[in-house]
């Protein structure tokens, strides 16, 4: 059952996934483009180290953004046909809902690995293309692992939301909106100031989500391909 579901998802998403794979492979190469040697007219490794790290930092935000885009696209496309056809196909299968959802999620997670593998290959090519000065190291494996995990996180979050009903999605959106509004209003609530929420409840909630042990902590870690 897993293979047909994988094939169906691939058939649906391949025209969108292929450009993502190309982008994932090319991004590390773009990051180190023009950094193969010392800056023009110089032979100083110290100047080269600075130039390399500055260029890597410039492209840093694109990596987690690409991972999130891949995950979101795969998740929303996973349930696309089910939503359009009223889940008749799912209900006609001799599977429990748990098995069906897990198989579907597994199929999408397998496809999510393809851009990750492309990025891993691109990162190794990029690392080999740059002569790193003393003090700098390349981390292609770590970068690819972060990318894969970030993709899976964003995929699983949106997959869980898309698997629910419209009513569930509305409840989730309403809950998020309520948190935002209460967080903004809560800056004036003095009874919160001595609590864990502090003087800025909204920022506290965002910190919980984006830093450990929140689900999106992987997005705020070090995504540098080349670092000290």
């Amino acid at each position, binding site marked *: 059952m897993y293979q047909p579901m994988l094939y169906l998802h691939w058939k649906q998403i391949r025209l969108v996934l292929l450009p993502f794979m190309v982008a994932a492979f090319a991004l590390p190469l773009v990051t180190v483009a023009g950094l193969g040697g010392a800056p023009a007219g110089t032979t*100083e490794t110290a100047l080269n*180290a*600075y130039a390399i*790290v500055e260029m890597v930092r410039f492209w840093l935000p694109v990596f987690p953004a690409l991972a999130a885009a891949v995950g979101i696209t795969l998740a929303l496309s996973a349930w696309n046909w089910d939503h359009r056809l009223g889940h008749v196909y799912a209900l006609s299968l001799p599977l429990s809902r748990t098995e069906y959802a897990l198989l579907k*999620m597994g199929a999408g997670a397998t496809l999510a690995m393809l851009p990750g593998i492309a990025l891993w290959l691109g990162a190794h090519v990029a690392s080999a293309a740059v002569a790193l000065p003393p003090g700098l190291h390349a981390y292609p494996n*770590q970068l690819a692992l972060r990318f894969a995990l970030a993709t899976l996180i964003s995929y699983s979050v949106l997959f869980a939301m898309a698997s*629910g009903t419209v009513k569930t999605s509305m409840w989730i959106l309403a809950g998020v909106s309520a948190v935002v509004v209460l967080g903004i209003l809560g800056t004036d609530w003095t009874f919160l100031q001595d*609590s864990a929420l502090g003087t800025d409840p909204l920022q506290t909630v965002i910190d919980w989500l984006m830093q450990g042990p929140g689900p999106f902590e992987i997005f705020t870690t070090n995504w540098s391909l080349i670092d000290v």
Partner: protein
Amino acid sequence: MSRRPPTRGRTVLAGAWTGRLLLAAMSAGGALTLPGVSPVSAQETEAELLRRIDSLTVLAGEAAIAAQAARDARAKAEARLAEAEYSLDTVRVADMTIVTRESDAAEARELFTEVWNESFGGYRSRAPGNRTFTYLRAAYTVDPIPARPPAERVVVPTWQSRSQAKARVRSAIGQVLAEDLGGSPVGAWLRRNPFSDRAPGDVYRQMVLARSSGVERCLAGDVPSCTAALGLGPDGNTVSAWYSPEERRVRALEGLERVGLHVTSGPSPVGDVFGSALARCVDRATPDACDALLGGDPDSFAPLPFSVRATLANLALERGGRGAWTRLAQDPSMAAGEALAGAADSSLEELVSDWRAWVVESRPEAQAGLGGDSVLALVWILFFAALATRSTRWRFA
């Protein structure tokens, strides 16, 4: 038979014109009655205009005084309110005045006493006696304790340990005492609080990216290069000790680009002494061709910022133990290197060598925590997978 216009229309028309005349008269009268304002005629003298400006200036001054009085009154009212709300207490430790809440008073006294005895014991300065500190242990970082500036505020989050609280207190006292170094060679070299926080990994990163061959040699193990990079070299702060000729050239041209002068090659756009120096620099005529363009304070071109120098001073004070601060600040004429060596109670070379070893050992793990991040991510993935399988979609009523 003539037709006379309707009486009502003529009355309306007359009324409309009357209204316009009345309105114009009222506007003119209103303008005339505005206090202090009168039409400026062509015959108005310059003296009259200056008199009016002077009167407005007096009014502006009175308004500023009134606004300041209102701010002072508001500050006093807030202070009374805070005192009533927070039950403030005042603690005195070695000429320092600490304003804190009653609940924090005992802790504040202990911390300030310990820090003073450990790090500043025996030092006599008038500065702390003239300054007020506030101390607050709370979950939030906004300090509501009122204190007239220049009070030094110490806010310690509740989740921080005692050693972290002591570090904050030490930094606050150091910030005050750093003023005593002003005007001395060590003060000119340091230019900041030696107890300010600086993650050691940041120092290593800064040194790798310093764009300085001198710093590169320092990292490779050449201690005299470290001494020079920190601005403590025996020849003073010379740019040639920090940078190679090519690095000096890059910095000189970058500086010119920042002011809008783009030069790559060819005739100099400026035809004077500066222009010839610029041309020699661009064409790499001699190894020191660009030094003339790096004018000004040599410290402005230092490869390592003053915050890195503060880590060396911090290490010297830590190694020197009790009395270190006194030895650092006692002689305002002592050279910076000598003062640091005296504070650390060792030679400068030994101190810098230890500092370099500390920096190299503190090399940050760029990918630290990836294992934990991975496990956390997998846990969340499984959590959301469980949520997906528990969808209400297939639950029949």
